[in-house]
């Protein structure tokens, strides 16, 4: 049985339809990521699931419970890290955690939480004086203080430097190891690809596609992009291009000076012939890159929109 199931969710703000019939189910222990362009309805969807915003239509079932009847029970089973760092700025890390712990019937061990979010050394610091990454980790700590089954992380890494971002990833992975279900939204494709079991792409208030990152990428065309640059200059690149012209494994080519780009559905085959030719001529190749297709390509393919970090 899924731990969370939403069915036909709809929400309009005046004439603007923010969410237009979203449905999905999340299995226990999954990291489930919702991505989409700005204004796609991600936050609205999450807020409806979190019980802050009543949906116009549709049903939300969390662990077999619904908001109309079991609001308090649901609140005790979910943990939420909202987009803005909503906490008491003049209280210390520990005071914030203790305060939020007092709201719930059961709570996670404070030491364990501090350790997981790696703020043991800063436990007596006021939130005001924490760095962005530390604040974000505390927000996640507050989301897990009630030992919830489901944790919602709304863009936990937005605006953080790469190291701070990696720290958050570690926390998400350890939550998964603890068997928690995590529902994540993010701006970073790399993050979605790395952390998620399944990805749900949302655009204009609808689910565009939903699958594992690998399956989503697999659904795209098999063509790969291969890039080479020649140490022996433009002539070598041009000759190689001409030699590969009628090769069935090569779909098309583009040359820019001494660098050559080709697209191929069978890159091994194409490269085998290419290297055969260059070896025969004695041309040296400086760099070879085969670009993997990423979720970004999936995103662009499905929404027709550029992804912006």
């Amino acid at each position, binding site marked *: 049985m899924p731990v969370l199931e939403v069915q036909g969710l709809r929400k309009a*703000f005046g004439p603007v339809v923010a969410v237009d019939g979203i449905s999905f189910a999340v299995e226990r222990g999954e990291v489930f990521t919702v991505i989409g362009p700005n204004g796609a309805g991600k936050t609205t969807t999450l807020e409806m699931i979190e*019980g802050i915003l009543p949906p116009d239509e549709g049903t939300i079932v969390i662990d077999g419970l619904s908001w109309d009847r079991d609001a308090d029970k649901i*609140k005790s089973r979910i943990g939420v890290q909202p987009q803005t760092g909503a906490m008491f700025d003049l209280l210390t890390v520990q*005071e914030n955690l*203790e*305060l939020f*712990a007092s709201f719930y019937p059961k709570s996670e061990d404070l030491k364990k939480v501090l350790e997981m979010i790696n703020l043991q050394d800063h436990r007596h610091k006021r939130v005001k004086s924490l760095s962005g990454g530390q604040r974000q980790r505390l927000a996640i700590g507050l989301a897990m203080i009630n030992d919830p089954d489901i944790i919602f992380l709304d863009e936990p890494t937005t605006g953080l430097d790469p190291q701070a971002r990696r720290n958050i990833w570690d926390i998400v992975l350890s939550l998964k190891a603890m068997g928690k279900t995590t529902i994540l939204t993010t701006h970073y494709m790399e993050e979605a690809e790395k952390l998620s079991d399944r990805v749900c792409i949302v655009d204009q208030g609808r689910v565009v596609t939903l699958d594992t990152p690998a399956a989503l990428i697999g659904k795209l065309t098999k063509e790969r992009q291969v890039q080479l640059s020649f140490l022996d200059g433009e002539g070598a690149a041009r000759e190689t291009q001409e030699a590969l012209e009628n090769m069935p494994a090569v779909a098309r080519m583009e040359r820019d000076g001494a660098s050559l780009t080709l697209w191929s559905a069978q890159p091994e085959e194409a490269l085998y012939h290419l290297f055969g030719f260059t070896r025969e001529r004695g041309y040296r190749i400086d760099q070879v890159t085969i670009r993997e297709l990423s979720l970004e390509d999936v995103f662009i393919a499905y929404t027709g929109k550029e992804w912006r970090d």
Partner: protein
Amino acid sequence: MSKGKQFAKLFEAHFKTMFREKQVWFWNIFFPIILMAIFMLIFSGNDGDEFKVKVAVVQPVKNEMTDAMLEGLRQIPVFEWKSAEPVSAGQADEWIKNEDTDGVIYLPEEGSAPIRLVVNTENERNATSQALRSIMDQFVMRANLTAAGVQEPAYRLEFASVSSGSEELSYNDFLLTGMIALALAQGGMFGMVDLVEMRRKGLLKRLRMTPVRMGLVGLSGMVVRFLLGIFQIICLTAIGVFGFGAHLNVDIPSLIVVFIAGSLTFNALGYLFSSLSKSIEAYMGMANIVSFLMMFISGVFFPVNALPEWLQGVTGYIPLTYFVEGLRDSMVYGTGIFTPELWLSIGVMAIWGALAYAIAAALYRRVRIEVR
């Protein structure tokens, strides 16, 4: 977790947040104290001192009549003599120009000439000159009566002031109670800025995601603000009484009731401002305008009847007027809790408080649905 434990934790959070904010200390404690001290130093300087007018006299002709007049002038108790003996006209003019004296009296040169009183033109219309003039009027009239053979006039006026307190109400008592009311009112009106900040940061929303009751969050904040209010009363009273010799006659039950009614009313006004503002700037602007307008027409610094009549009409509708009155009744006049005037004040405040609260609550409900 029990409601008691939750309340204790929330109380602790609000308490620490409030007392760790330096602005709270400044605006709620130091600012009212400074303001009160300044007003008391300015306006109560003459308290207890006698009224004195500094004069000099010019006696151009020395004869029996002018000697008698000089003797008579010397009997007037409020006169302080610049020079014990009559001076020359030139010297007297010099003193007037330099404002070394409040006025100079020129005795007549011959029998029918007038007694002249000369003051500096700058001071022509001020209270001291007016008083000096009426003293001299009296003096001349007495002299005429004596000349006409009347020994003692049949009627005399004696002036004294009476206040309704058991003791005389001094300006310091008046100002102290006004300042306490103002400080408490501002504490309430400005104190809700937290709420704007909590909403802006999404903290209110975050709390709604937990099982805690929002009523409990509000209540704990309220109790902390009550404590701050009690602390304000104690500080201001101590400084007023020990530093400036204010005397109070406190009726504790009345004071408690007025304090609670006033605090609730002004907190409700603050709550209303918070429901109307999306940013701290908007909130502070609103609270500043309202408190600034109210403080000068509600009898905080000076009595309401010193205001122009049309403004006194407005005063009668303002909650601060009634809070000031209620506090004065309960702290200076020792008015008992069963006095109708006290309940009139409480009633007017209650109407304001209830209206402000109702409007704010309605606005909050609407906003919660509309804004994501």
